[in-house]
């Protein structure tokens, strides 16, 4: 906004070019906004297509061509053999791996930011490598381990895999929240006689909670969405993405789009609630005087 006022206040050297410049500038502004609008539409159209086609009554096995409006699939979202079990597997794995990765990752992030110790730089690098490794390599490598160790792949190996790929994401997210954290608050708690555990539970954890929650949300979203790594380590267990992959070659019933729309609406609601709560927490924090910057 300030930049815009500065632009318009800029003196033009010649009066006659001024009008032309202003028109040109306005046209350019308009073009840029229109371009950004088109980019947003590009992002959202496929999502809208999914919601719209969840109401389709398709001809044939594939839900690609619009036929007629129908509530049939929404009335019976689990009406396709195996789709309900697949979704339940996905939700269970996502919930368990989120809890596991969030706890492990938060502790690791605390250790990394809080303490000076030898080998911190290589540890930081080591945590970064899984993020820079293509998923197909992560999945293949983990399967090599299970094959060599004679571990049968299934629910548990999927869970192990999901905690593994979520860990780095959680550590990075919580760590960014911990950097810039005001340590004098903890010192104050300890001066007032709190034990290290009490300090952590009553001071540190509530302050880093927004970071932990965003990390957990990210982990849940990544887990429930994962196909590539799961595909390598699933054995005969079917998750929702694996179900879709299997279906994509044979038949795509509208129920897949219905469940996708449901997950979409649920995630959107969760997201809005979190944003709203964080904003409320920030407002509360702003009321208190001398609150140190925690963001």
């Amino acid at each position, binding site marked *: *906004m*300030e*930049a815009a006022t*500065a*632009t318009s206040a*800029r003196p033009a050297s010649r009066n006659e070019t001024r009008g032309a410049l202003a028109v040109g*500038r306005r046209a*350019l502004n308009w073009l840029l*906004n229109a*371009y*950004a609008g088109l*980019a947003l539409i590009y*992002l*959202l159209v*496929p*999502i809208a*297509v999914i919601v719209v*086609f969840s109401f389709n009554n398709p001809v044939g096995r594939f839900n*690609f061509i619009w036929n007629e409006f129908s509530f049939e699939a929404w009335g019976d979202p689990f009406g396709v053999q195996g789709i309900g079990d697949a979704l339940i597997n996905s939700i269970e794995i996502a919930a368990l791996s989120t809890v596991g990765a969030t706890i*492990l990752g938060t*502790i*690791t992030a*605390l*250790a*990394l*930011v*809080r*303490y*000076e110790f030898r080998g911190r730089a290589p*540890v*930081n690098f*080591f945590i*970064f490598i899984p993020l*820079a*490794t*293509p*998923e*197909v*390599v992560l999945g*293949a*490598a983990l399967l*090599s*381990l299970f094959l060599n160790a004679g571990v049968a792949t299934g629910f548990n190996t999927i869970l192990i*895999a999901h*905690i*593994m790929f979520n*860990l780095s994401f959680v550590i990075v997210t919580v*760590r*960014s929240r911990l*950097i810039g954290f005001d340590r004098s608050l903890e010192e104050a708690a300890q001066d007032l006689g709190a034990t290290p555990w009490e300090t952590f539970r009553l001071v540190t954890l509530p302050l880093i909670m927004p970071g932990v929650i965003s990390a957990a949300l990210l982990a849940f*979203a990544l887990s429930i969405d994962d*196909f*590539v790594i799961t*595909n390598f380590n699933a054995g005969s267990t079917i998750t*929702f*993405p694996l179900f879709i*992959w299997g279906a994509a070659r044979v038949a795509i019933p509208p129920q897949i789009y219905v469940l*996708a729309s449901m*997950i*979409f609406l649920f995630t959107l609601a969760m997201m809005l609630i979190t944003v709203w709560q964080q904003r409320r927490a920030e407002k509360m924090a702003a009321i208190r005087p001398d609150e140190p910057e925690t963001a």
Partner: protein
Amino acid sequence: MPAGLKKAGLPYLLLLPGLGWLLLFFAVPLVIMLIESLKTGSIDFGFTLTWEFSNYTDALDTYSEQFLRSFEYAGLATLFALVIGYPLAYVIAFRGGKWRNALLLAVIVPFFVTYLIRTLSWETILSDSGLVVDTLRTVGIVSEGGRVLDTTASVVAGITYNFLPFMILPLYASLERIDTRLLEAGYDLYGRRRDVFLRVTLPLSMPGVVAGTLLTFIPAAGDFINAELLGTPRQFMIGNVIQSRYLEVADYPTAAALSFLLMAFMLIIVIIWARIAGTEALLGTEGERR
């Protein structure tokens, strides 16, 4: 235990569970896969370690086409994502006003829908009797009876779409951090819009460009879902080969060698980028205690 010793050991103790998990299920598997990649044999007669380094050269020879295609498609998709994403991130950061958060939410909304279904949605959109193909046929860009699905264009479009938010978010983060007083200073010094953008805004947003291109390129180069659903074997990338060698043919040595080659290429690219951008920005460890 003396307090000093206890304190020195504490960070390692806290690191143990998380790092242990990563060691056991990320590092150890890589070592096992390395050994796997040097074996010979078959699934029926078993694999034996023969230090077969030619697995690597053979794999590279046989699948150089898919390797090159992966980098070509990923490069194109990264470029398109940058061209599409930068102006959008710019508008949200500088003109979003009170709509900023809502607009950002719109950017990540695609992530709320399963990756595979997003890709299926593109299959729906680009399908032969769909609206897009009909329009393109009417305009004459696509010939009568021509297709969009199962072409290079559809695969690259799918990859671009699926990883676009990974480009936009870091771009937005770096643009949003720019102190607008710097831009004002540029205008006060009679800088034209273009000059202020090229000499102030763009250089300051470079960390976002570097992070965004990496976050887009790495998953894109290893992707096989878009090629599988939106393409044909003629569009198959190295990810398709690794997945079928591993899961369908059970040719573990070749699949392992290909995985390592892919990872090696990625690390080279990351290191080059890190040189350009600085490791701290890349690892996100700026501002740590030291």
